């Protein structure tokens, strides 16, 4: 039965994620407007919700310009890699009990593999544009993403030690007693920061820092190719939120401290928890200024990497101690 479900789920998950990313652009702009004491997009339709549709129409009908000085094949490939690798990673997300496309004993590693392939999209976009701003943006993105991937993986290993499995379903099920945010709060912090850097969202959006690099690696992109790159960014944000929930906040499990929580279906709990983290992403964008690039890199190598190694060491030692 589970197998049947999973094949049917592929299409709704893919389409749903893309549409969700589109609506999220509007919702984020509204939220930013609210937090920054301005209106935001409120003209098209009720509360401006049709702005998402208008944006889509505009992006579809815009001229799709290929720079004649660039590397044509890479230029076309890059946005597909950005969005495609992120969409691929959705196959391992368990939305509810028995509501997932696949559950593998390497699910966590599969996510890491897909997020490391996403680097190529950004890197090739920068390389193929043959433009100095794009090139600098691409180089920054490559260095930033490779750096943060190192301890993104390491920060997850604490959870893997607790659960004893790389399978996300097993990880959620082993959180029945206690969510992993309590023993793994350091791991959560590191994973969240790394996720922020991986999706190059605003405090860490140095690859596309518009004040210094025009638009960074996607300077030359327009029309649907630009839309795909944007979609990739939002897909990464939703994916990171969903993974934070799955790994550290009990996934679809209802919080036990709320009476009557178990009457709400698990999928709804998963959605609610994910929404909280998506809003946290948006709030960080509204609230925190961008660090300098060398600050970002030294934060990674000098603070977060040793911290994640220490976290791994302590978690491993503690679980060995408790076993014997």
């Amino acid at each position: 039965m589970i197998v049947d479900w999973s094949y049917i789920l592929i299409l709704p998950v893919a389409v749903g994620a893309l549409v969700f990313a589109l609506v999220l652009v509007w919702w984020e702009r509204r939220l930013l407007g609210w937090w920054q004491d301005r209106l935001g997009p409120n003209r098209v339709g009720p509360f401006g919700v049709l702005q998402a549709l208008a944006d889509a129409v505009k992006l579809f009908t815009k001229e799709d310009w290929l720079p004649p000085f660039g590397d044509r094949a890479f230029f076309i490939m890059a946005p597909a890699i950005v969005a495609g690798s992120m969409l691929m990673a959705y196959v391992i997300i368990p939305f509810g009990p028995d509501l997932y496309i696949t559950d593998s004993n390497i699910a966590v590693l599969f996510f890491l593999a897909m997020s490391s392939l996403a680097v190529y999209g950004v890197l090739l976009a920068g390389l193929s544009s043959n433009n100095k701003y794009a090139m600098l943006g691409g180089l920054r993105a490559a260095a930033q993403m490779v750096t943060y991937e190192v301890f993104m993986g390491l920060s997850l290993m604490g959870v893997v030690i607790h659960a004893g499995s790389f399978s996300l379903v097993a990880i959620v099920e082993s959180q029945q007693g206690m969510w992993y945010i309590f023993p793994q709060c350091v791991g959560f912090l590191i994973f969240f920061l790394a996720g922020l850097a991986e999706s190059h969202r605003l405090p860490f959006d140095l690859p596309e820092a518009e004040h210094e690099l025009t638009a960074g690696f996607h300077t030359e992109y327009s029309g649907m190719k630009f839309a795909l790159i944007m979609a990739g960014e939002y897909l990464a944000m939703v994916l990171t939120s969903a993974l934070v929930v799955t790994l550290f906040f009990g996934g679809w499990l209802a919080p036990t401290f709320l009476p009557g929580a178990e009457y709400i279906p698990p999928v709804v709990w998963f959605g609610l928890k994910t929404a909280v983290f998506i809003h946290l992403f948006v709030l960080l964008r509204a609230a925190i200024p961008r660090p300098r690039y060398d600050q970002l890199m030294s934060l990674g190598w000098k603070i977060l990497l040793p911290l994640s190694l220490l976290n791994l060491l302590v978690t491993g030692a503690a679980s060995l101690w408790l076993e014997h």
Partner: protein
Amino acid sequence: MALALFYVAAAVALASTVLVITRRNAAHALIYLVVSLLSIAVIFFLLGAPFAAALEIVIYAGAIVVLFLFVVMMLNLGRRSAERERLWLRPGMWIGPAILVGVLLLEMLYVIVLDAPGTTRGTVVGPKEVGTALFGPYLLAVELAAMLLLAALIGAYHLGRRYLGDRREDLP
């Protein structure tokens, strides 16, 4: 089914590896290298080693080739270097490697035709088994590799010390 998938992945791996060697544009060659690594990951997966498949992508495709590509971007190789590559790879260059590879090919054909053919069926080795093997019978190798990596790390740290830059400023 698995056999057909295996042959498709193997063919992709071979074709992309040939293209890695023959491309003149370094960036194109590296992207073919990524494709080759991905197809090898698929082969690992089919042979029942999902852990090795995932690590192949995470480490080789995701980190090492990215660094290669990073360097290629920094050097900003243009049309001139592609031209130079063309001069380097004259047809005469291929004779030596072709003979050597031909010998290996004959040897492999001999093994396949005369000896017992290898099988693509294997037991599935999960992450836990890999870990148990690495930290059980192969512990010494793991520790040796760790020492080597530590030495590399210390070397990199030594090269990147801050006062090297400071001293350069002191020079007249």
